[in-house]
């Protein structure tokens, strides 16, 4: 459950991430691949070495989708419907992996925002990422 204050905070934070979407997205992915190597199994078709074009491009897509979701929190299911189908029928990622990427996104935000990544901001973003992942995993079965 997100309060109105939390929803505003989430939009504020993600809006700041849009200009640096490639940096934030690629860093979150790299952190995930380094800490949880099994996640690399989904990317055998891409070059995911640090700073590669594929990594930056893919990272950017993820951050942009999150920013889009942030601006449409009350209609997440509709906004994310195409991504939801994509994850369910094409990507078929084991659902436990969403939490791993979410955690690495939080770590990346923490590194970049420092003390501005307050407990309240952390809680709001964590809740948002959980809601976002739940929609992405909705059609899995």
């Amino acid at each position: 459950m997100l309060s109105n204050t939390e929803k505003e905070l989430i939009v504020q934070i993600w809006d700041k991430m849009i200009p640096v979407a490639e940096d934030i997205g690629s860093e979150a992915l790299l952190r995930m691949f380094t800490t949880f190597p099994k996640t690399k199994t989904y990317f055998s078709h891409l070059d995911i070495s640090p700073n590669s074009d594929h990594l930056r491009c893919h990272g950017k897509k993820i951050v942009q989708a999150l920013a889009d979701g942030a601006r449409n929190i009350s209609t997440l299911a509709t906004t994310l419907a195409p991504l939801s189908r994509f994850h369910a029928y094409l990507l078929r990622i084991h659902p436990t992996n969403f939490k791993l990427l979410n955690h690495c996104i939080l770590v990346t935000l923490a590194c970049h925002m420092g003390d501005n990544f307050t407990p309240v901001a952390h809680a709001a973003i964590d809740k948002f990422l959980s809601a976002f992942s739940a929609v992405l995993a909705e059609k899995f079965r």
Partner: protein
Amino acid sequence: MVEWSDSERKTVASVWGKINVGEIGPQTLARVLIVYPWTQRYFGTFGDLSNAAAIQGNPKVSAHGKTVLNALDKAVKNMDNIKATYAQLSQLHCEKLNVDPGNFKLLANCLTIIMATAFGPAFTPEVQATWQKLLSVVVSALTSQYF
């Protein structure tokens, strides 16, 4: 048996050396209680936990945060024997404190995130991975005596 490379051992020692337990301990416990409010169930005697500000200003939370983080010193000093090192604490958490071990990971994650806020870019993906490996061994050791 957990294998640690020389580089991982150095990373753990170096990171731990930079952590101010007096600051990071309280911040970590406060963050767990704020981000995962169900964990407050274990702290009924701690007084006011009604909102983020109350939690962050609560002296019992601070004191206990230091206790918890000080206990991590055992892992850093006994990296090759973490399971045995935490056997008693594991029993305590299971039999006396009745803590759901699912919550250990939440504390580990919050600590990782606080370290990221403190170290910034110095908390590289490699440092994060090594640190999380240590924490996952600790979490596993704390869960090991549960039945």
